[in-house]
């Protein structure tokens, strides 16, 4: 029963990773951009919710109404003001710019909030749990996180397959030049894609903050979890991202059970093993043009 419990917790943790991975996967799918600030922005969203609680008295759930739109706008501004200039000039410029931003965000958080760990207070729901069968108890919060991830993935799937704008996203992903000939402004699409990516980041960040404590230097680890989710699931596949998150969460939990120091290591090793035996991930869709 203990193992069933551990695997159940791992599956639910996978929901959080799927949220991280979806944002990374979306912008890679649309514009082949790898955003190295992804993890730091997850942490920054948690800090923004902290501020909303401190100065506006908003609960973490209500702060989502503020943090998510702000991050959506931030994404559009970031892409159109900065990152669009770096696209189409090779591999290095977007990496240097987003890595530079990552360093900047980390140190600004450090200056503003010190290196101490913080947490978001969502009240009794944080520790509430449901006993599914005797011996298997799951937290309400992880269930909410998992359900949020599934709803976001369903919504994104519907958006990409059923709406005109979603079709423009897919067209730009396939071939930006031809899409432009059809009247699609690819720079605008890129801005919207980054906005959506950061909106998911905001949800993931606030849920992270409610779930556990965070500090300014937690970003890189979050980026790596997002990356591993995408690698396991396969580039460009939304349901692969959910599967990737679940596999990562389960392997980390099993690793931690064997030895508390193996939480991260187990996730890394499963990712590398997948890379060795199934390099395109479990459900790859997007072709990486290099």
């Amino acid at each position, binding site marked *: 029963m203990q193992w069933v419990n551990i695997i159940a917790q791992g599956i639910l943790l996978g929901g959080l990773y799927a949220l991280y991975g979806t944002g990374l996967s979306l912008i*890679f799918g649309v514009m*082949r*951009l*790898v955003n*190295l600030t992804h993890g730091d922005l997850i942490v920054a969203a948690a800090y923004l919710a902290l501020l909303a609680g401190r100065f506006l008295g908003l609960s973490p759930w209500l702060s989502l109404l503020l943090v998510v739109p702000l991050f959506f706008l931030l994404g559009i501004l970031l892409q159109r003001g*900065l990152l669009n*200039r*770096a696209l189409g*000039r*090779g*591999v*290095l*410029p*977007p*990496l*240097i*710019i987003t*890595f*530079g*931003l*990552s*360093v*900047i965000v980390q*140190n*600004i958080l*450090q*200056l503003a909030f010190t290196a101490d760990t913080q947490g978001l207070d969502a009240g009794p729901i944080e520790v509430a749990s449901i006993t599914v069968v005797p011996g298997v108890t799951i937290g309400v919060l992880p269930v909410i996180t998992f359900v949020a991830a599934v709803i976001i993935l369903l919504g994104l799937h519907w958006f990409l397959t059923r709406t005109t704008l979603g079709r423009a996203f897919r067209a730009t992903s396939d071939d930006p030049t031809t899409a432009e000939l059809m009247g699609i402004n690819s720079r605008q699409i890129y801005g919207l894609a980054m906005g959506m990516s950061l909106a998911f980041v905001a949800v993931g960040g606030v849920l992270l903050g409610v779930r556990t404590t965070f500090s300014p230097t937690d970003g*890189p680890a979050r*980026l*790596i979890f997002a*990356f*591993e989710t995408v*690698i396991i699931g396969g580039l460009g596949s939304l349901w692969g991202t959910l599967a990737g998150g679940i596999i990562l969460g389960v392997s980390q939990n099993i690793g931690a059970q064997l*030895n508390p*120091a*193996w939480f*991260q*290591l187990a996730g*890394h*090793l499963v*990712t*590398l093993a997948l*890379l*060795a035996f199934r*390099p395109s991930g479990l459900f790859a869709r997007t072709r*990486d043009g*290099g």
Partner: protein
Amino acid sequence: MSPIKWPRLKPVAPGPRPTRSVSARGLAVWSALLVAALLSLPLWGTSDQMRTIVEFIIFLALAQMWNLLAGYAGMVSFGQQAWIGLGGYTLIVLAVDLHMNMFLAAVLGGVVAAIVALPTAALAFRLRGGYFAVGTWVIAEVFRLLISSSTTWLQGGFGRTLTVAAAMPRPLREQYTYWLAVLIGVGSIALVYYLMRSRVGLGLTAIRDSESAAMSLGVKITRIKLLVFIVSAFATGVVGGLIYLNALRITPAAAFSVQWSAYMAFIVVIGGLGTVEGPIIGAIVFFILRDYLSSFGPWSIILFGVIAIVMTLVAPEGLWGILQSRFGFEIFPVRRRLPPQQ
């Protein structure tokens, strides 16, 4: 019917000045003089000067190797700290546990890094572009976590000390460390220079310009990239040995910190990607900036980030690129140009 009036052609603005290179003999003479001056420093310089030069060479050589990967072979890695850490730990294990000469152990750190680089490449080469960068970072994290989990032998996160260093008189140790550093600094530049002037360099240039065209002309892309990856791991591993020969104390968190790769990238971006001179200029600028800004704490790191972003957007060719296009001058000619038209 009036004759057709051709528009008067305006004189064409002169193109970029033809690049003048230092002659092969000039380069040899000047390098020999510089190396002689550097090698003789222990005879006339102070111990502080030696320490500063060792530290400078560490960053210079690291940046040369990062540039070899990113600037010439198009492989942007954020996992070069893997080789620093493996080099450093190899030094400790060989010198302290197996009583080997510590300078030899530092160099063997590179050999271990090169050996481990082979299976690493097998995994990392399945990723491209930005995912290659993060993938190499994850692999470096695996090494960090594995070494941290050896709590008895390698003392886990607490780290280990190069205790045998105390057996050698300090001035002598500093002198040998210094000479090894000069050798590594000169070696890293010579390595990139000769590699780029060889067939490998020609292949790399072809890959950089067009991978598919290079492949169709018979350039063995994977083999060349693998060679460069392993050479870069070897030299970075040797530098890792040097770093901990100098620092005497190693922890997994510091040795496998992604900050190393960040410094390498910063130096190369500031100096100029894909040139031998770029990392030299970049390392000088980085060294001076770091010295001036060290008292500003987090602000200095924020400024480094801003500088890297602005340089990438405004002057992607780096400081050396700016100097080169203005003065039409190069010290280490590794480009191949068409002979002048008659």
